[in-house]
């Protein structure tokens, strides 16, 4: 690993100033589970490492009436250990609880997962279907962006060199909604997704019709893929196998995967359809359970 300077700002302003000063030669360090690996194998060699974990705004985890706020430096384990999040945002638990093993989950963050911009990033489809918004700051000001607009290519994001992801905010899901995230890997843990899929659904009171749906898939395109059309196709459709199959077919059609050591094109296409089908079914089950709990 090349030598670098380690900086640990305790205030957001200080971090913003450092990022401005060292734009292009600094990297934020959240859990480091991507960054340190990349620095060791030479894919990244920043001169400055700015530790995100000592900045209060990046460490907030708050669930209030309207929304969930997840600081960019909050670890996956902190998220999945939170019973309230588990109840309201089960797909977040599905995804945060399967990144690496327990050791990795103790360090890895959703912020890092998003900013690392791997096509296979497991938390990203889940936050996309929940409609999460990224809160970004820099010396030039603040902006808010839907998370599906962050990743632009493998390893690339729409964040400028001096920008910091502060937190994600996720609106509280309405009654009769549910979501599920599923991933396929050859082992049962410790693998990068061959394909993954998240589905969010909102049903009518009776649980018979889709009011809304959002679907996203990973490892089947250069970035985590928000398949808007597949969700839209479910709107006002009856909750049955046929509607679900049609949406899953759209997810498959949207996929443009590659052949690599983790999977083949054909297999990934099939997987995205299978996982989307299963995730939709799971989301429906959760939505019905949710409806009952509320009622």
């Amino acid at each position, binding site marked *: 690993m090349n030598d670098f300077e380690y900086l640990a700002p305790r205030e957001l302003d200080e971090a913003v100033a450092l990022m401005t000063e060292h734009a292009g030669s600094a990297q934020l360090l959240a859990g*480091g589970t991507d960054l340190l*690996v990349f620095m060791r194998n030479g894919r990244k060699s920043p001169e400055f490492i700015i530790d995100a974990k000592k900045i209060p705004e990046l460490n907030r985890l708050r669930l209030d009436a309207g929304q969930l706020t997840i600081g960019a430096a909050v670890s996956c384990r902190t998220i999945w250990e939170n019973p309230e999040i588990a109840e309201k945002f089960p797909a977040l638990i599905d995804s945060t609880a399967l990144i690496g093993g*327990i050791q990795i989950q103790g360090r890895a963050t959703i912020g890092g997962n998003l900013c690392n911009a791997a096509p296979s990033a497991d938390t990203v489809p889940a936050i996309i279907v929940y409609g999460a918004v990224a809160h970004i700051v820099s010396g030039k000001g603040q902006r808010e962006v839907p998370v599906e607009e962050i990743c632009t290519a493998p390893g690339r994001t729409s964040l400028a060199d001096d920008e910091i992801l502060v937190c994600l905010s996720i609106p509280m899901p309405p009654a009769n909604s549910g979501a599920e995230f599923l991933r396929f890997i050859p082992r049962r843990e410790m693998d990068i997704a061959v394909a993954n899929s998240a589905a969010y659904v909102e049903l009518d009171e009776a649980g018979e019709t889709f009011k809304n749906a959002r679907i996203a898939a990973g490892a089947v395109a250069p970035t985590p893929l928000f398949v808007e059309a597949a969700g839209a196709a479910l709107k006002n459709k009856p909750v049955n196998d046929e509607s679900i199959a049609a949406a899953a077919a759209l997810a498959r059609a949207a996929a443009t995967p590659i052949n690599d050591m983790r999977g083949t094109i054909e297999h990934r296409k099939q997987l995205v359809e299978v996982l989307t089908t299963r995730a939709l079914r799971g989301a429906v089950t959760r939505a019905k359970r949710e409806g009952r709990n509320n009622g």
Partner: protein
Amino acid sequence: MGNKSHITATINGEARDFLCEPRQSLLEVLRDVLYLTGTKEGCNDGNCGACSVIVDGVLLDACCMLAVETEGSSIETIEGLAKEGELHPLQSAFLEETGMQCGICTPGFLMSAKALLDKNPSPNEQQVRHWLAGNLCRCTGYDKLVRSVMKAADTLAEA
């Protein structure tokens, strides 16, 4: 060589300080600076768990953390698992149930299992397997290793 930082941390209950370069991982410092070589390196990229340690109560891979990040932290390593010459029930169970063959993965498994039992004193087999999935063992096929952890849980429950 880069500038060295002076870090103060509590290691196995003892206040320690050391000098390190920013690029040195916690694993490297434990092993090569403090000579606490019980924490092992199997991959140096988070995939084997041989370097498992507990930092401020959280189970981590020491290779995936910079040593400079540990300023003020409390770090538990395998060297601190036995207290005053008394083996931890996990250590006894690994010996009695032959939960190891070559033993290179053993410190990592013991630290992971300790973190599990601290959180969940009576895990079932599936919970043990799930918690230990970040630790690789190539020798045992896991059977006796998992049994060792369950036996230690039983011992702790009886105590």
